[in-house]
């Protein structure tokens, strides 16, 4: 008798979702579905608005990574104006993006996932939470809070607000960085580097306790995609798109993000509002690829900053080709935090960063614009069309989390097949199914352009519709 298990909603991720596991007559998991159950439709209600409003409308998609939407949107508007931004503004924008990476990764690693690492996947959820984790390892907790504070402080210092800042404008940024503010940020760099290095040292020992999870958490061959700069660094703000395979071979390179429709397509499935992007030449679903920290570290041959480079070498030594286990998104996230701190220091030490001229002006020169950057969770593309008056006539957003949709669904199936073995649900099984999703750090608010919060319900339902078992968590 076939049965269905539903996890609704999934906890400790950003947004609303549920998971359904279909069991076959032998009680083995035969199918797994990750349902994203929210919808807001930003692409529709921005139609008719002036293009210069778009950065501030679009950043409202998300309260965790508004900076990424702000930047991708502003870059699309730069194209509409047919202009480059002043050198100082370019570097300030890059720094803002890296600060976003730090604060978002710190949230994911220290707040959302550290409870699993510290308390164990099978621990009682009453203890396996932020507060339990921080009580168990206060030094790690304080470090995570400081890293997030630092990322937010850089954003606030540059852009005036921690969340939904309006500082990035088409043509540049609307206020330069003062020397006093620069020096305050610079003074914190050594402490932040020390915290990131300590966290890495701790995690490199800790993850040895999760061998089974490493082996089964979305650990399969796939392509990886991300922006790469001409000097082979991951291109958080600029660069061209690269695809590599699971052996680390380059499948496609130097792809202009503006031509994304030539090599990316999006499938839709009836069970979710989140689309399924895939690499067009390999079709659907064969064109499965992953983005985000794991992809970015797999894609490049040079991390680009001294301390992160050492960590990158160690990370890449985990596998002969690409590192395939999505559990290692966590590890990659910590390396990216270290890289971002070092890279912010490089920008702060560059005299250009405090130059007063931070914005150029122009009027509308193009009727179509595409902006791309690397959000914390992966490649983000904003694509707009406008009329002669500059009013938006069409918009398409290709969101970081969406790129990973195929991989997340396949990952749930892999984990469930390994851990779900009976009709009786238990907490550890349920948490592992969630944790594989958590490893990707999906932002469903972004991917459906919606927001929300997630309590959790798991149901085991027979083919006839009767509930055989159920676990619920409060919101």
């Amino acid at each position, binding site marked *: 008798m076939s049965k269905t298990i539903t996890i609704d*909603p999934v906890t400790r991720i950003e947004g609303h979702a549920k998971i359904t596991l279909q069991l076959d007559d032998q009680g083995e998991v035969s199918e797994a579905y990750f349902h994203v159950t929210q919808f807001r439709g930003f692409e529709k209600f921005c139609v008719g608005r002036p293009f210069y409003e778009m950065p501030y409308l679009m950043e409202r998609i998300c309260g*965790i990574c508004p900076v990424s939407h702000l930047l991708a949107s502003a870059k699309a508007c730069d194209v509409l104006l047919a202009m480059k931004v002043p050198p100082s503004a370019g570097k300030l924008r890059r720094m803002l993006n890296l600060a976003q990476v730090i604060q978002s990764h710190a949230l994911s690693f220290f707040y*959302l996932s550290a409870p699993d690492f510290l308390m164990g996947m099978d621990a009682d959820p009453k203890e396996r939470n932020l507060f339990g984790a921080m009580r168990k390892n206060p030094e790690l907790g*304080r470090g995570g*809070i400081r890293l997030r*504070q630092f990322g937010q402080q850089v954003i606030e210092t540059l852009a005036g607000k921690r969340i939904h800042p309006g500082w990035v404008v088409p043509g540049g940024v609307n206020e330069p960085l003062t020397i006093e503010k620069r020096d305050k940020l610079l003074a914190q760099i050594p402490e932040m580097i020390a915290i990131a290095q300590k966290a890495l040292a701790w995690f490199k020992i800790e993850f040895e306790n999760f061998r089974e999870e490493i082996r089964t958490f979305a650990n399969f061959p796939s392509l990886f995609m991300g922006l790469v700069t001409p000097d082979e660094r991951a291109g958080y703000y600029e660069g061209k798109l690269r695809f590599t395979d699971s052996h680390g071979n380059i499948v496609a390179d130097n792809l202009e993000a503006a031509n994304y429709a030539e090599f990316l397509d999006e499938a839709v499935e009836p069970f979710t509002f989140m689309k399924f992007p895939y690499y067009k030449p390999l079709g659907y679903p064969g064109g499965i690829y992953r983005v985000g920290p794991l992809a970015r570290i797999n894609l490049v041959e040079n991390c680009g900053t001294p301390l992160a480079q050492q960590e990158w070498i160690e990370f890449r030594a985990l596998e002969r080709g690409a590192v395939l286990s999505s559990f290692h998104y966590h590890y990659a996230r910590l390396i990216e935090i270290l890289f971002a701190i070092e890279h912010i220091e490089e920008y702060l030490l560059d005299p250009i960063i405090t130059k007063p001229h931070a914005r150029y002006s122009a009027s509308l020169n193009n009727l179509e614009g595409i902006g791309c950057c690397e959000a914390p969770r992966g490649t983000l593309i904003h694509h707009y069309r406008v009329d002669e008056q500059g009013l938006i006539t069409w918009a398409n957003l290709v969101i970081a989390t969406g790129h990973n949709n195929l991989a997340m669904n396949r990952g749930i199936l892999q984990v469930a097949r390994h851990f779900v073995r009976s009709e009786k649900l238990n907490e550890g099984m349920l948490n592992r199914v969630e944790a594989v999703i958590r490893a990707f750090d999906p932002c469903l608010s972004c991917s459906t352009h919606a927001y929300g919060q997630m309590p959790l319900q798991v149901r085991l339902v027979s083919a006839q519709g009767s509930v055989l078992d159920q676990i619920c968590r409060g919101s």
Partner: protein
Amino acid sequence: MSRALVLACGNSLRGDDGVALQIMNHLQKAGCDPAPEFHCRQQWTPELAEPISQAEIVVFVDAALGTPPGAVTCRQLQPRPSTSLGITHHSSSESLLLLAEDLYGRRPARAYLVTIAGEAFELDENLSDPVRRAIPEAGVLIKALLMGITVTED
């Protein structure tokens, strides 16, 4: 280190939910003795645990569901774990006191939650009339708390 901390929580785009921000502005204009450090957030997050740990008194200010609209209530707080398991990037006032103690080894000697009952939380930058009228009362209460007048019941 500021010995007094006022933490205002709310969203000024959601009607009465923004009342704490207006109260904070009111207090800043009116002046307080002792002068507190003000923080204004849309959520209370773990990053606030450190400044909380350094304060002698902390007053959390927030809008609340309740009746009648504009009713100002005050409750003394004790450290307590969060009951919300699914959400880890925002926190309750009690759980932040606990976090301050766990992570930084101390918490304020006195901590209060001042709430103002709201009636309209839809998209709006304006407060409803009863909530707007409650701002001076809430301001007087918070100033009294900062001066050391103990409040033990709603």
